[in-house]
């Protein structure tokens, strides 16, 4: 995918994202301590763990919201460690947030247009009407997530599940190599969850996007992930297929066995 | 076309209109009496048949203490209300804005109260006249007294704006000329209306002066005096103070009034000249209150305008100005004159000492300082007034 293939990327073998030995502490509390993993193109990888395991910290280091104390983040062979979120985005990382982050004073379409404008023209043009920019592209993205019908509605009045879809469309706007989704289905009804994740998986496969997501709902995790990475107290304790992780005794002990979330099976 | 009737009324009524702009809401302590004095004079003039066979009418406008608002009113007054001339102004910057406006619009402006020297000198022009004794004149009156004192080490305190700074400048310059042996050991410039009195008093005290020259007035003065009295700042020291004898600023001090300060002001209760008694009686009869200095300024400004109109025989501004140069007019303090050389009137002020009488502040040992005697020589004035 990437035009420039560095020697490192060759080692990582098709990995779009490589996290190496990431660590972050907040005043004495070691939130993440030496975590390494990779995500390949077109794959859905779930990052799970009990509350406080370091998932969101990990995410924020990947997305640029936090600067790691140690370790590196490599995107398609290029080190992006410690870059600002806006730089990380430009290099091909789309992001959705635990609490949906959209522009409430804009319509659904305008939200996507904003991302497209940022991607294609830059935002420094003070004259050309923004509404007329990239309408078709925006609508195509909205169609992809099933929000085309509601393109003219204000984001401020949307249902929560719809907001998540808009966010997904926005995250897809710059044709990312990697999609980071923090709790993409939080606050949604069970049926909505399944639909959203199926949609994401379909898009990921189609566009060959690597997807890394955190999730509390184990049904979602086991149904939609190609691989599962388990964190516990800032350390990586398992990394494998859903089935392998489910059988892992350590995971069962610290995670599933704790009864912290609905195992289901 | 709908506007026509009012225009017809304005011109057809035949009254002479004066547009009077002042900071009525921002400086009510001075300007309420001012307006009353003005209206008293207006009533008297009109009762006597007006001037030129026409009544005088005044349109009052409040500039809220902002020069830009004063300029707006001025434009509105001459264009919409078709006034014949402008008057008023309390703050120096408002006065200067109107001065410049008068020049630009070739309209007479009778500045009543603003004290800035620039009004008649540096920025003076053909269209502007001023009634009150200027900063220079009042400083000169006090320097005359200050020079007689034994004190050599002076501390100075003045509000931080042009009036305060100019007063200090003239006081230092003139006193140094009269008494080369004096030195100035401290200068304090509290923000106007926001003095931090305790700290200011302490800072003055720390310089151990033998005498103090004060320019603060109104609430700054009141607060300075209370803190100064408690902390003993004024004990055993001479104090020379601008405007403090004016009832506007003396009365709020009440029992707190410091005694023995050398001040400029207005001894309204004791001044027994026939002109003043007549004025005071009329004022008391109309308002059931004693006149303040503002009342005199309003009264005199109005009367001087009436005198100018009568002398010119017309409302034509150019002729009116010619008439006003050298015009002698009646005042509550006796006769005064608008000097031809710089358009400053020779109205004076009273110089005396403060004292306590029945728990109230009064002026004693006062004398009238005729403004004509406290102005620089004509040659000096010419160099200071580029407009000629």
């Amino acid at each position, binding site marked *: 995918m990437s035009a420039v293939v560095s020697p490192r990327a060759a080692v990582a073998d098709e990995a779009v994202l490589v996290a190496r030995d990431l660590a972050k502490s907040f005043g004495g509390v070691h939130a993440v301590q030496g975590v390494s993993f990779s995500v390949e193109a077109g794959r859905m990888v779930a990052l799970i763990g009990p509350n406080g395991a370091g998932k969101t910290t990990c995410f924020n280091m990947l997305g640029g919201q936090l600067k790691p104390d140690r370790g590196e983040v490599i995107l398609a062979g290029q080190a992006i460690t410690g870059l600002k979120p806006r730089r990380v985005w430009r290099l091909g990382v789309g992001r959705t947030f635990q609490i949906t982050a959209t522009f409430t004073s804009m319509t659904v379409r305008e939200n996507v247009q904003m991302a497209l404008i940022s*991607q294609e023209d830059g935002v420094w043009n003070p004259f050309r009407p923004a509404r007329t920019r990239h309408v078709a592209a925006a609508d195509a993205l909205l169609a992809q997530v099933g929000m085309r019908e509601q393109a003219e509605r204000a984001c401020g009045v949307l249902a929560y599940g719809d907001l998540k879809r808009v966010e997904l469309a926005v995250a897809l706007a710059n044709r990312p190599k990697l999609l980071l989704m923090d709790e993409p289905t939080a606050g949604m009804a069970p049926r*909505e969850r399944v639909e959203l994740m199926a949609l994401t998986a379909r898009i990921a496969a189609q566009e060959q996007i690597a997807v890394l997501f955190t999730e509390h709902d184990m049904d979602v995790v086991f149904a939609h992930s190609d691989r599962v990475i388990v964190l516990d107290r800032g350390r990586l304790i398992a990394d494998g297929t859903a089935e392998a992780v489910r059988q892992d005794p350590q995971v069962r002990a610290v995670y599933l066995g704790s009864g912290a979330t609905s195992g289901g099976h | 076309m709908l506007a026509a009737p009012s225009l017809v009324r304005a011109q057809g009524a035949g009254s002479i209109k004066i547009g009077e702009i002042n900071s009525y809401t921002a400086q009510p302590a001075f300007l309420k009496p001012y307006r009353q004095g003005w209206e008293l004079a207006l009533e008297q003039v009109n009762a006597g048949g007006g001037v030129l066979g026409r009544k005088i009418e005044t349109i009052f406008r409040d500039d809220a203490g902002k020069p830009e608002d004063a300029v707006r009113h001025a434009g509105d007054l001459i264009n919409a209300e078709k006034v014949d001339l402008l008057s008023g102004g309390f703050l120096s910057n408002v006065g200067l804005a109107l001065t410049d406006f008068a020049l630009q619009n070739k309209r007479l402006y009778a500045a009543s109260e603003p004290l800035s020297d620039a009004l008649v000198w540096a920025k003076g022009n053909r269209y502007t006249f001023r009634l009150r004794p200027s900063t220079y004149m009042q400083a000169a009156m006090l320097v005359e007294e200050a020079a007689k004192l034994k004190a050599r080490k002076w501390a100075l305190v003045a509000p931080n704006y*042009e009036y305060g700074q100019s007063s200090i400048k003239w006081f230092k310059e003139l006193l140094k000329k009269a008494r080369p042996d004096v030195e100035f050991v401290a200068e304090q410039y509290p923000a106007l209306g926001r003095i931090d009195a305790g700290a200011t008093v302490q800072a003055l005290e720390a310089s151990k002066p033998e005498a103090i020259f004060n320019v603060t007035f109104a609430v700054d003065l009141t607060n300075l005096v209370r803190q100064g009295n408690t902390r003993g700042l004024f004990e055993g020291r001479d104090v020379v103070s601008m405007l403090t004898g004016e009832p506007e600023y003396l009365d709020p001090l009440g029992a707190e009034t410091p005694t023995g300060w050398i001040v400029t002001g207005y001894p309204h209760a004791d001044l027994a000249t026939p002109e003043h008694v007549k004025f005071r009686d009329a004022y008391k009869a109309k308002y059931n209150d004693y006149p303040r200095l503002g009342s005199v300024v309003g009264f005199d400004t109005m009367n001087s305008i009436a005198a100018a109109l009568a002398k010119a025989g017309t409302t034509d501004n150019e002729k009116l100005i010619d008439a006003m140069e050298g015009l002698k007019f009646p005042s509550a303090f006796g006769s005064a004159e608008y000097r031809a050389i710089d358009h400053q009137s020779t109205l004076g002020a009273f110089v005396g000492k403060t004292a306590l009488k029945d728990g109230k502040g009064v002026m004693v040992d006062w004398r009238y300082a005729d403004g004509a005697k406290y102005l620089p020589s004509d040659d000096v004035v010419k160099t200071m007034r580029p407009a000629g």
Partner: protein
Amino acid sequence: MFDLILTQTLNGLASASSLFLVASGLSIIFGVTRIVNFAHGSLYMLGAYIGWTLVTWLGPTSGLGFWGGVGLAALLVAIIGVVIEVAILRRIYQAPELFQLLATFGVVLMIQDIALATWGAEDKLGPRAPGFKSFVILFDNRFPTYELLLIAIGPLVLALLWFLFQKTRWGTLVRAATQDREMVAALGVNQRLLFTSVFAFGAGLAGLGGALQLPREAATLHMDLSMISEAFVVVVVGGLGSVTGAYLAAVLIGILHAFGILIFPKITLVLVFLVMAVVLVVKPYGLMGRRPVGAARGTATAEPLLRPADRAAKLAGLVALILLAAAPLVTPDYLLLTLTELVIFALFAASLHFMMGPGGMASFGHAAYFGLGAYGAALAVKWLGAPMEPALIFAPFLAGIAGVVFGWFCVRLSGVYLAMLTLAFAQIAWATAFQWVELTGGDNGILGVWPSHWAVSKTAFYYLALAICAACVVLLRVMVFSPLGYALRAARDNPLRTEAIGIDTMRVQWVAFTIAAFAAGIAGALFAFFKGSVFPTYMAIPRSVDALLMVLLGGVQTVSGPIVGAFAYAGLSEQLMKMTMYWRFTLGLSIVLLVVLFPRGLVGGFLALRERRDRSDKDGAVVTRLATEGAP
């Protein structure tokens, strides 16, 4: 020397006490209700005047008369607070952020005239406090015993407040509401009662602060505005909602004043604002403040959609412009002066709106750029001998450059902190113009800034102003709907998302800040030539407040709001000033009424009305469509 340092420290502590009382009330009110209470200085003033009346009446010589009067004054002011809260503020809590400021400003104006009518123009010097009339010798200096009492009252009140907040249920609620409003709402607390009681309590503290000043300062009609700006500084320097912070800041400001007098006697005007600027740059949330929980604008206060003008609105705009252009043909000459001023103010308001509406950056100091534009023009005329045309071009660059410099600091903050930093910079600019007499002429200003010969006539200058202002307003409007304007709105709506789609939010805001400053500079330059002179008042606080009022009155979240607001506010105040000497009361009352009737601003109210009408037409259709689609 050492004596002096100790004495000045005590002086600083004494003047800190009243400041603290007022500021802590302001801070508590803001913390719970999020109201920036402009009328807090007026409550302080009322405390002083009512205290004066009561003490004089009850007998100032007896301890009971004096202290009873002081206490009663505080109580009465608290009741006045209840009246203000129940009659006005309660009706507009749902209005957009800062809108309540407009109402409280109306109250300020009304109280000014009420106080003048009630107590007259003369300053009222209160009696000395029984038992505290004299002095003690401290460090070889006489020190008033009353000042010592005040020094003690500060920490005493602080301790009482601490006890109240830590040990009572009411205090706990106040603390909780300060930290997280939604949470308290969720707890099912009677919010109305909480808000009213908090407002009354804060008002009472202000009243107490005013009454306690009586033995050391005369009550005057100016004490409201001089107190409010310092109280704001104290609240912000201390950290919003932090009472301890307010005490520290009050002490800091008091002591700085006392020592500033010794070291830089002329700088007292601006010292507090310099301190505030430094504190905010170093500690963006004040000394004791914490970053507010959650975004300043949560989902609860979603901004309404901003739509480009439809055909009807465009037509209305065009008609308005044609009417303005045709005005010289039909209106009498003198009306042109009024119109010229209104047109200039419309641009001034529109420039503030650009950063405040789409940018979400409210400025309490926008007059700085208006004033710098005016001074730019005047300085070019005075020192470079420039004619009007080049001066008009040069002037906005002075404002724009100031915008670049000040804006760089301001965009690092948000909300009220940002607004207060703009105020600090404006005061610094003002003080520079005021104090740098050699360059600017000080408060006497620069005279003789008249237009070129061809533009001297009223009609010519009106057309010049109209052409420039209309072009600039249209340009600002175009910008709102451009990618830059969208990015600006994006940064306001959700900075996290904005950064996550590759946009440098601070830089976008910085550019917008500069554009707003530049546009205000254009308005200021025109104003200078219109008036023929410039003065420091052009960049003083009242002018900044004027701009804020115009924008709020018109409606922050509408693009044409500021223009309507400018015409409404400036037009109204101008007419009222002509009609009555009690224009302040009338104007204040009008503002309060407008605020209560149109809580989204004039244009906002109009749009809401239209939307409701439209919705009643379409609503049925939308509901059925959504129902058939069901959950996707």
